[in-house]
C-alpha cells in the first residue's frame, strides 16, 4: 500500500489515498449527521463556513505556517461543540489539501485540527457575555504548538529514530512560533466576530 518513504512520511498509493479519503469523509458525515431543526439552513451555513475557511487557508499558503484553520477549529469547537468542530476540521483539511497537496499528512492535519476543536469545546472559551478573549488567546497559542506536534508525527514511517524526530521538531520551532503569532493575531482581530457568527448555530451536544 505504501509506495515509498520520505521526509513527509509514506507516499500513498491511489488505493490507500482513496481509502483514507473515504474514511475521513465518512467520519465527517457521521459527525454532522445528527438532524437539527433547520437542516437546510444549517447545512448551507456549515458548507459555506467550511469552504470559506478552506479558501482562506489556500490563499494564505504563501505565508509560512500562518494557519487560520487552527483558530477556526478552536472556535467552531467552542461554539458548535466537539462533534461539529471535528467534522469542520476534517472537511477543511481535505478540501484545502485538494488544492495545496494531498497525502499521508492530511490524516494528521485532520486529527490535529479535530483534537483542537474537541479541546475548544471543553475549555469554556465562550461565556454568556461572548468570547473570553484572554482564554482564547492562550488556547490558540497552545493549539499552534499542539497542531504542529501532531502533524510532525506524519514523518514517522519506521525509518526515523527518536533522536531524528526530536531534531526535526527542534528545527521547526521558529515556524511553530510563527504559527503561534498568527493564531494570536487571528484571535484578537477576528475571534469575537467569528464567534458571534457561529452563535446562531445550534450545537449538537
Amino acid at each position, binding site marked *: 500500500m505504501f509506495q*515509498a518513504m*520520505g521526509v513527509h512520511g509514506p*507516499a500513498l498509493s491511489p488505493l490507500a489515498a482513496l481509502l483514507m479519503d473515504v474514511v475521513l469523509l465518512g467520519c465527517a458525515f457521521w459527525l454532522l449527521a445528527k438532524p437539527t431543526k433547520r437542516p437546510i439552513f444549517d447545512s448551507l451555513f456549515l458548507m459555506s463556513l467550511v469552504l470559506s475557511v478552506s479558501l482562506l487557508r489556500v490563499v494564505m499558503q*504563501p505565508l509560512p505556517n500562518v494557519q487560520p484553520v487552527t483558530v477556526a477549529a478552536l472556535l467552531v469547537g467552542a461554539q458548535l461543540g466537539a462533534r461539529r468542530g471535528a467534522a469542520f476540521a476534517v472537511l477543511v483539511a481535505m478540501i484545502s489539501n485538494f488544492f495545496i497537496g494531498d497525502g499521508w499528512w492530511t490524516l494528521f492535519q485532520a486529527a490535529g485540527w479535530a483534537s483542537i476543536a474537541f479541546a475548544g469545546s471543553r475549555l469554556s472559551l465562550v461565556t454568556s457575555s461572548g468570547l473570553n478573549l484572554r482564554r482564547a488567546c492562550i488556547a490558540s497559542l497552545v493549539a499552534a504548538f499542539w497542531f504542529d506536534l501532531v502533524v510532525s508525527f506524519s514523518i514517522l514511517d519506521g525509518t526515523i529514530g527518536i533522536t531524528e524526530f526530536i531534531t526535526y521538531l527542534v*528545527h521547526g*520551532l521558529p515556524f511553530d512560533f510563527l504559527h503561534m*503569532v498568527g493564531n494570536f493575531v487571528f484571535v484578537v482581530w477576528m475571534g469575537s466576530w467569528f464567534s458571534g457568527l457561529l452563535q446562531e448555530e445550534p450545537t449538537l451536544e
Partner: protein
Amino acid sequence: MFRRLMALLFISLLLVPTLLAQETTNPWNDSHALAWEYDFETGYISTSPLFADEQIVVRTSGNSEPAVTAFDTNGNKTWQRLNPASTNNDMSPLLLVQPGEGECGMWPEMILVGWTNGVIEALNPSNGEVLWSIQTEVIGWGVTGQLALDGEFVIVPTRQGIGQYCLADGQQQWWTETGLGWRNGVAVDDTGYFIGDESGQLWHVNRTGMATSYDLQLGKIRHAPLLTDAGIFLHAQQDSSGLIAIVEPNDGHVLQQFPTGPSPALPSLQGDYVLTGDSSAVRIFICSTECEILDEVPFHTNGEIGWYENGMIYAPSNTFDSTWGLFTFDGRENLTVQSLDVGIQGYGTAAPLQYIVGGVLFTAFGNDHGVLRVYSEDATNELPPNNESPPNNQSSPNHESSPNHEFSSSVQGLVFVMYLLLGSSTVSLLNGKKEWFVRMFSLFILILCVLIVPDLSTQWSQTFDEKFPETSASEEWNEQWPDTWLGTQIVIIEIDGEEHVLGGFVGHETVFSLTQAACNEFGFELSSSSTELGMYVDSIDGVEAEGWVFAVDGSKGVVSSDQSKIESASIVRWSPV
C-alpha cells in the same frame, strides 16, 4: 507615565528601518562598471586568477576539462593550457614567479600550476607554453595546496609530503613524507617550512628535508600556516566547528585557542593583522606579542580572502545565492561588511583579482558558476565590442540587478504598512485603547515574523546542527567504489531503481551544492525552486515522482537540502518518493 514611555519606545522603533536602510547603501556599485566577462559555461573557478604579462590568467576545473586560460585586458582569450588527466577539483592557487638565477640555472617569468593529478607545470605567461613539468605523488589526489617560493626553489605540498624543486628546471632536490594533506599550503621562514595535515599535525621541515611533527590534535589544517610575531597562526577544521590556535614555532606548544564556526576559510595576513573566515563570521585579529580578536562580522566564507594593498578586502560568500563581502577595516578595531552582488550566482571560494591597466583599477570575480566578470573602477567604462564571451542576461551591479538599488514595491509597501501599524499602536496606547493596541501591535509582530522567520530558521538550524551534530551513520562505504573517493563527498541518485553513484567531490558545504555538482557531472538536469523553507528539489533528470528526499550518511534530511550541512567525507543519497 508608563503609557508615554511605551509610546516613545514604539516611536523610536519607527527609526529602525531608516537606520537599516543607511547600512545597506553601497558606494562600490556607484564607482564600478562591468568591463568584460567570460562564461566558461562549465567548470568552477575555485581559486583567484592572477595578472601576468598584461593578461588575466584563470584556472577552471570540476565539471569541465581542467584548464588554465589567459585573457588579454579586453577579455579576449589568448591561450589555454588543458590537463585532461587532472580529474578532481583543482584548487591549488596559481603562482607567479619573477625571473631569476640560481645554482640550478636561470629561469624566466613563469606561472607555476599544481594539478590534482600530481603534475607541477611551469607555464610561459605570454603563450601558455610548458617550460618544464614534473610528476609528484598521487594518493587519490595530487597537489591541492598553495606552493611557496624559497630563493631559487619552489616548495610543493604533495598529497602526503613536501618537496623542494629548482625553479630553473623543476629538478627535485628532496622530498620528505609528512601527513596526508588537502589544500594544505606551505609557509616559509628562516628555519625552513611549515605545513599542516588532515590529522591535525603541524610539520616543520628544514631546508635539507628533515621533518619534525607536532601532534596538535586541533583538527584538519587546510591552509598554509601564517607566521606571526605571536606564533604560528592556524585555523583548523573540526567536525562541526573550527578552532584557531597560536602555536609556538620552536616546540609546537599551543599558546592560545579561539573557537570559531565550521569550515574555515584560508586566513590572510597583513603585517600584524590576520583575517579569518568560516561559515559563521569573518574575524580580524592583531597578533603582536599575542593574538587578540579585534572585531568580527557575520559572514559565510570558506575559501580565499582577498586583502589587497589598497586596503580593500573581498571574500566570496560560499552560499547558493553567492554574493561577495566587501570588508572595511578602519585600522583600529572596527570591521564592517557590505554585500556585493556582481551578477554571478552560485557558490564561491575564489578571491577576486585586482590589477591596474592604464591607471584604472580592475577587479576580476569568479566562482563555481564558471563566469569571470571584470569590473573597472571607472564607472564610465563600457563593454568592449570584441568580447567573445556569449551574452549574459545578468546585468551589471550598478544597474537594475543590484539589490542595493532595487525598488521592490511589495517590500516598500509592507514597510509602509508596518510604519502605519506601529504608529497606530502608539496612538492606541496613548488613548488608552488597549484592545486596539494589542491588535495593531500583534499584526506588526506577525508581519515582522513572516519577514524574518525563514532566515531565522536557517540560522537556528545551523546553530542546532553545530551544537548537536548527527552521529548515526548507516550509509556504508561500498568496496567497489574507487579508492580515490575515500575521504571525499559521494552522491548516490536513485532513478528508475538504478543507483547512479559519483564521488571524489570536495569542499561542498551543503547537500544542495554537492547535488548540483553531481548532477552537472552526471549530465542530469536538476530542477529546483526556492521556497520559504529553503530550496526544494522538483526533479532530477526529469524525474519528478512525488518529490525527492535525501539522506546524509544514512540519516534522513530534516531541513531543506541547501540548509543541510555535510562533512568533507559524506555520502548523500537522493531517492524519489
